[in-house]
């Protein structure tokens, strides 16, 4: 491990890649809008180049990953020096986890930047777009690479900020950018959605903050490696207070739950679709929402050591909670995706659901001592593969929305002929999402299910069942959105657009990035097939082997419970069959009219309404947190601040003195005899009271 003997310059020169890959995009964020004052083309070029620079610098880390000798904790300089604790340093943690995630982020960001050049063509506010976009890339890489909680928080808040800026990108709130609906379902303006995202994730952030500060209080450091290295001492100290470790674990999960849109803080993500589609693809599907997954993976060694190494039973709260939450969220979001009418929203629900899978994998990893690396690897594997196919899905959706100028799937249909390339690309990605072999989604989802199964506890088995059902639902809604978009009869909107001749395939600059993503999806799938030949060649195994090093001093058992190798594929195959048949009947083949089916049964109608209204969670939140607070503030302002406090003190006290004045001024009668009377009375009163005081009475 590096220590701070070297000067900052030496450190920078020794490890240029990791530092430049997040610094350059931030510099780019500042420069690119300025270039925009000179030339639009130069600005676009600059944006692409800065994104490319991130990819290139990130890729310099790949050799370390491959040869298994990475630099670890690289510290640049002291940032804040505390009086009696180790200083907070500016440093990067370069280990397999961060290298993998950073490369995924950088690559996908670059592809989407290229796509954006086409998608955002002609937008007058492009400088702002590039600023936030590049700033996002820089912050996201900082988040992933930082070696301590505070720098991670900087990146964490930074990406939140960019998310806010980009969701609310269309700040003029023209009607066409609103999401939700159609009426009577409420619609939300982009600026509203941005705020919602920032505030809801803010809840998670402060919970995370609390956890960080609890840990800091006991451990005295923010640095991940130091926390893991010294965990045996501070964890024991912390767990001396009963319940505190559980609390810390739950609070620690707060941030990931908010950022990765897990239940109960998942409600911001569907609305985040108000931003431009490349933004949804990058921030709200591929990268930022994975920050939570990354963080869980980052801190899970601490709890793993606590649970399995030190035998602190409370540490298991961390794993149980995240597994349950992840699994439930996967189911919850998938159910909503089955009825969503907006294309991007369906994809958003799907994102929530898939992140639930990742959380599930990370959760079950701690339930059994031997599953840790398997679960971790499964989670990260799904993270990578999901990032690729979901980005691809969103970008395709962007092409579609760009063409049809409506967010509703009811305004689409039959686009397969008009947009064949988009159709093909989206189909591949959707199949990967559904877990159709041999695409990457199949392997990663199987890895998740597999780790559930081999964890072998009753809880993990139950979670496995739910996850498997969710897999069926995933295939169902995938078929649904693909069919509604590309198959079937063209809707009225499409007919009109066709007549006007507006409808056309997306330009090459837009589909090329998608194609690259799809190729990667297929490539990973093909590599994984090699794993069938020798397990050592499979990407999962590679991840497992690399990630097992990040845990530090504790020796990890790499093989825990076993399950028959064929069991997971067969169960998920069965599930695919169920989902596929239902999807084919209702949407692809149109054998059954979905609408009529729902109308026919009160039960189905009830379920449909329940799902359509997002399990009423959103309405409930609005009722409590928005309407509640808004009416509370009005009531407080009217009844407490104005009526009681202001009126009571600022007006009441002067009035009191005015009243006193008017009463007391009567003392001053102006009548001489009265004045003399006062004198006599005072004389007597003083004399008599003095007598009582000093002479013991009269």
């Amino acid at each position, binding site marked *: 491990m590096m220590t701070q003997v070297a000067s900052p310059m030496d450190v920078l020169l020794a490890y240029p890649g990791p530092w430049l890959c997040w610094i350059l995009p931030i510099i780019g964020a500042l420069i690119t809008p300025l270039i925009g004052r000179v030339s639009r083309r130069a600005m676009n070029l600059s944006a692409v180049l800065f994104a490319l620079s991130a990819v290139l610098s990130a890729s310099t880390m790949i050799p370390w990953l491959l040869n298994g000798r990475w630099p670890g904790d690289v510290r640049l300089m002291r940032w*804040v020096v505390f009086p009696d604790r180790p200083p907070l340093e500016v440093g990067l943690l370069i280990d397999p986890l961060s290298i993998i995630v950073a490369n995924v982020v950088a690559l996908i960001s670059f592809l989407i930047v290229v796509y954006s050049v086409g998608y955002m063509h002609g937008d007058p506010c492009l400088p702002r777009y590039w600023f936030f976009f590049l700033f996002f890339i820089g912050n996201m890489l900082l988040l992933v690479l930082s070696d301590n909680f505070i720098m991670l928080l900087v990146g964490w808040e930074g990406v939140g900020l960019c998310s806010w800026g980009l969701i609310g990108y269309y700040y003029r709130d023209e009607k066409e950018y609103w999401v939700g609906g159609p009426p009577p379902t409420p619609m939300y303006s982009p*600026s509203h959605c941005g705020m919602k995202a920032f505030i809801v994730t803010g809840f998670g952030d402060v*919970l995370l903050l*609390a956890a960080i500060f609890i840990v800091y209080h006991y451990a005295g450091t923010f640095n991940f490696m130091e926390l893991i290295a010294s965990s045996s001492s501070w964890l024991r100290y912390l767990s001396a207070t009963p319940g505190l470790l559980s609390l810390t674990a739950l609070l620690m999960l707060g941030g990931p739950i908010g950022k990765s849109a897990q239940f109960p803080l998942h409600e911001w993500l569907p609305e985040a679709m108000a931003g431009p589609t490349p933004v949804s693809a990058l921030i709200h599907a591929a990268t930022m929402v994975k920050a939570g997954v990354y963080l869980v993976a980052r801190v899970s060694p601490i709890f793993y050591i606590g649970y399995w190494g030190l035998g602190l039973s409370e540490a298991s709260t961390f794993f149980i909670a995240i597994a349950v939450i992840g699994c439930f969220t996967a189911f919850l979001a998938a159910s909503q995706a089955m009825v969503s009418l907006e294309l991007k929203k369906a994809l958003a629900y799907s994102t929530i659901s898939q992140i639930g899978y990742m959380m599930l994998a990370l959760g079950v990893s701690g339930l059994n001592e031997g599953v840790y690396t398997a679960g971790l690897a499964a989670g990260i594997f799904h993270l990578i593969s999901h990032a690729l196919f979901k980005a691809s899905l969103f970008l395709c959706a962007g092409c579609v929305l760009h063409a049809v100028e409506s967010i509703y799937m009811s305004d689409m249909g039959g686009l397969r002929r008009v947009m064949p390339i988009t159709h093909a690309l989206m189909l591949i990605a959707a199949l990967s999402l559904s877990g159709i072999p041999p695409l990457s989604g199949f392997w990663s989802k199987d890895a998740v299910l597999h780790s559930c199964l081999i964890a072998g506890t009753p809880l993990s088995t139950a979670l496995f069942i739910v996850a498997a059902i969710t897999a069926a639902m995933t295939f169902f809604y995938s078929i649904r959105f693909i069919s509604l978009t590309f198959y079937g009869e063209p809707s009225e909107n499409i007919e009109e657009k066709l007549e006007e001749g507006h409808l056309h395939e997306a330009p090459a600059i837009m589909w090329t990035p998608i194609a690259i993503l799809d190729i990667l999806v297929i490539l990973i799938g093909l590599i994984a097939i090699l794993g069938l030949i020798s397990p050592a060649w499979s990407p999962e195994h590679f991840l497992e082997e690399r990630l097992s090093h990040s845990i530090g001093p504790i020796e990890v058992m790499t093989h825990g419970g076993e399950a028959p190798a064929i069991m997971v594929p067969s169960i998920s195959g069965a599930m695919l069959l169920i989902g596929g048949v239902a999807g084919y009947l209702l949407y692809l083949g149109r054998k059954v009219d979905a609408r009529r089916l729902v109308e026919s049964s009160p039960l189905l109608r009830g379920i449909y309404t329940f799902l359509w209204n997002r399990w009423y969670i959103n309405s409930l939140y609005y009722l409590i947190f928005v309407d509640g607070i808004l009416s509370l503030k009005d009531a407080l302002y009217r009844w407490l601040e104005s009526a009681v406090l202001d009126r009571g003190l600022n007006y009441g006290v002067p009035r009191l003195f005015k009243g006193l004045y008017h009463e007391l001024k009567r003392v001053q009668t102006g009548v001489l005899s009265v004045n003399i009377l006062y004198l006599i009375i005072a004389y007597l009163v003083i004399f008599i009271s003095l007598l009582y005081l000093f002479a013991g009475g009269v």
Partner: protein
Amino acid sequence: MSQLYPLTQILIIPLAATPVVYLYARKMGRSAGYVAAIPLAYTLLLLLTLLPEAAKGVKHLESYTWAPSIGLTFGLLADGLSIWMMITINLLALLMSIYSVRYIDHRVKELFGGESPSTAYASYYALYLLYEVGMMGTVMSTNLIQFYLFYELMLVPSWLLINNYGYGDRERVGLLYFLWTHVGAVILLVGILSTYWITGSFEFSALSLIAAKPQAPFIVAAFLIGFLTKMAVFGLHLWLPDTYTQAPTSITALLSPAMSGIAPYAIVRFIVVPMYPVYQRFQPILVAWALITLIYGGLMSLAQDDVKRYLAYSSMSQMGYILLGVASMSTLGTSGAIFHYVSHGFGKCILFAVAGALLYRIGTLSISRMGGLADRMPVTATLTLLGIFTIAGVPPTSGFMSKWMIFAGVFDGPLSTSLMGISAATVILLMTVITIAYGLWIVKRIFFGPLAEGLEMVEDPPASMEAPLIILAVIAILVGLYPRIVSDCLFSALSALHV
């Protein structure tokens, strides 16, 4: 450096410049603002030369005999705790004097019509400098009497500025402001007097002698009431909304960030450091009070339609944060509180100045009549955002650094000893989400959405109003990137607190 008596200069030079500026303004009118900025710029430079020493924990003290028969000296002190207070005050005063040039010109013309008397400018800048001297003197004081003297001295010019240049029923509001804070101050005075009878000295260094005495809780309570009134915590805040709203904006931009924050500084200086054990008994009350202030201020600011009134309540809420840091009783939290004073100073100054700019360009502060201004006033909108991020603690602004220090302090202090305490601290933390909410909501209402009617011709304010704010925003970000410039000073002064 010490041969030059920098602190004496810092106090004397703006004071000596007052008549000069007055006379200049009588002749030249509004451009006196630039002249007033010269002494302030010089004193700021002097302060910056003291900064490296303060960061190492060196105290810079200049002291003179004052009234020997009651053991009074006139001391001027700059140490790690106060140096950033001074820099903030001086910086804001400097920038606001430049901002005032156009703003107060506008205001004076509004008040007096075409033939605006040059005395109006002259007395504005003269009082302005006196106000700055008062604030600086408060922070530099080494004894309670001197502190009280300057504490009241900053009240009079600020009151006159509100009374003469404010908006609305400025006379009533000025009176409210004066009386509320004056009542607080005289209660503080009782505490000071009691201190004297116990220790026989007014020096800060003697305060620690009280700690063991039975009267200590009463004295601490008297101090706290005095300071909390100035800080405008819940219940004692009623002077705040009207004052901040009706004061001329350039003055509000000093009142809120610079002046009311002197109170937490004084709490640290008077109570936390010397009387830690006594203070400990007040901690639960203060934490609760801070929390109530924080939430109440946030809720109230949500309810406002007037930009300045909104900002006023948000100041109240931010004072809740600072109080929380002070109440945390840990080195981190206390340093964070003073640090947040600095950040809040930058951010809130920007925001109030923006409100002034809106008033300057639009002529109204009613939020309901604004909307979609981001198109027309892009620079202003960006500055507002930066201001709000600085206050709400979004990186990379300095507000992020100060806020996490406050929270880390809350979890580092006595609250961390029990599960209940930690849960309470978590709840406190959870409540802070409201600051993001009210911050973003106002941006949304003023700058986003469709352009409101009648605002088609609006544009960004002139450069002399914008440039100071841009400088502030840049400084806020630079401090956020390199917080050691502040934190080293604070930690060097407060390290002894650590439990």
